[in-house]
């Protein structure tokens, strides 16, 4: 059995999670500080949560495809996103972004507002308050968002298929492998991949529940 879909999935999830962590954190922080237009911006950032994966795939394709502005810039560096694992990572990132963003925003909003205000009256800058006070206080929630968002990348199917295709050993992820096996009539292989995916997901979710900081906060 070719295990490459496992490693490809892991690689894609890791790259997507790192990217989404940074952007999700900055945007969540920005949105919590917004005074106006919050409802609209929040809705736009959460859109990938509710849009069909095919719509997301379509939107990614037209924005990074070889005829698009981004695609042309990448092309001039000899790089390409369509039909590459990097493209799959972009798809996974877009789809898992709302999970990360909403989780971190919730964690930041849980921080006692008076503590933040105290920091301001004491002369601390906004970034210092974020780094020294908000992040440490919100750490359990942020960690949980990272894990959930990583797990979400695993389940990504539709957008990945549209952007990166189904190239064995290159862009074929586990969820795509299940689909391919079923299509090819190889039920035994499909069973194996399903078992691996269920085990992989369970490990992640059990790990999430065992985060020491989360256990403590629930007591």
């Amino acid at each position, binding site marked *: 059995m070719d295990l490459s879909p496992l490693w490809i999935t892991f690689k894609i999830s890791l790259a997507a999670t790192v990217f989404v962590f940074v952007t999700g954190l900055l945007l969540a922080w920005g949105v919590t500080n917004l005074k106006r237009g919050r409802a609209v911006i929040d809705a736009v950032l959460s859109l990938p949560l509710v849009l069909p994966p095919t719509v997301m795939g379509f939107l990614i394709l037209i924005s990074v495809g070889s005829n698009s502005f981004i695609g042309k810039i990448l092309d001039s560096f000899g790089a390409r996103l369509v039909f590459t694992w990097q493209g799959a990572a972009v798809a996974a990132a877009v789809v898992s972004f709302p999970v990360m963003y909403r989780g971190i925003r919730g964690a930041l909003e849980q921080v006692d507002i008076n503590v933040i205000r105290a*920091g*301001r*009256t004491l*002369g601390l*800058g906004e970034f210092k308050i974020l780094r020294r*006070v908000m992040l440490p*206080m919100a750490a359990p929630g942020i960690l949980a968002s990272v894990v959930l968002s990583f797990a979400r990348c695993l389940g990504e199917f539709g957008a990945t298929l549209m952007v990166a295709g189904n190239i064995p050993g290159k862009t074929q992820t586990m969820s795509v492998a299940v689909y391919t096996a079923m299509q090819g009539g190889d039920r035994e292989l499909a069973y194996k991949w399903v078992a691996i995916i269920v085990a992989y997901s369970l490990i992640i979710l059990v790990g999430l529940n065992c985060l020491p900081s989360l256990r403590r906060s629930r007591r």
Partner: protein
Amino acid sequence: MKTLKVDIKKRCGEFILSVKFETSSDRFALLGASGSGKSMTLKCIAGIEKPDEGFICLGDRVLFDSSKKINVLCRERKVGYLFQDYALFPNMTAFENINLICRDNARTEELLKKFNIEGCSALKPAKMSGGQCQRVALARMLASDPEVILLDEPFSALDNYMHTIIEREIMDVLSGFDGPSVLVSHDRNEVYRMCGTIGVMDNGSLIDVQDKMGFFEHPATVVSARLTGCKNITALTADGFASDWGIQLELPSGCSAKFAGYRAHFFEMVGAEQKGKPNVFEVEVERVIEDTFSRVICFRQKGNKSESPDSLLTYITGKDTDAGDVKFLRLDPSRLILLER
């Protein structure tokens, strides 16, 4: 000596905050019931909330001026704000809480020592008592070298004993502080002990500003009379009838007051021969409350059918007075607090 000048308006839905006062060395108190806008005023001074219009000046520094579109950032205002729930950084030890602000180990040690909390230096707020937390908050506030000190009900989360101790420590800090300070409170005694000038807030407006002696002797409004602890208040008719209390009063001639107040420990027991005379109640006792060092007798004028809560009066007397003996009570008209509104 710097002067803090505040003249602001702010709308929050139905609620309208409209406050104007100035203070320099004399410690200023905002006294009011909860929801009267006193904390909101403090937040506007600190830059946590933004007023709709008006200005806030500290000495020659303009902190806020809506006409010139000036709104100095909270962190640049140099206000020391003491929060009711301390608002310490929970992820840091006492030492780190202070040192993050002054970034000077020696100064931090000195502040810890000044407030007698060296023992908590390595503890996080969750492991400290309320009194220790408030001391760390005080030390941390001083570490930021504030130019004005704002105290937002700093004792409300402390027990009685700790309240007394922390209050003295805050008094020490304030007497060594060379700038204006504003205390927000709903406790008349605390305000009387700590401040020189008292402003009463009611429903978003500052309705009565006086020095504390004048304030307790001659409160200007019904709301401020109640806040000074005056328990008995009645509306007056033009001919001096106390409509809530249900008795005739003898008022000084030419008195135009619409309301009158009378403190609960100023009543005098008199004999039955005074029955029916002005200023005399025929007492119908409704309940007797045993307080720590006194007896509180709640009574109404016999036959007074008024439903108003003010128809029930309070008489505070010594433990040696038996409630059954209280038949007639006379009030001394010269001790009535006469109020226009």
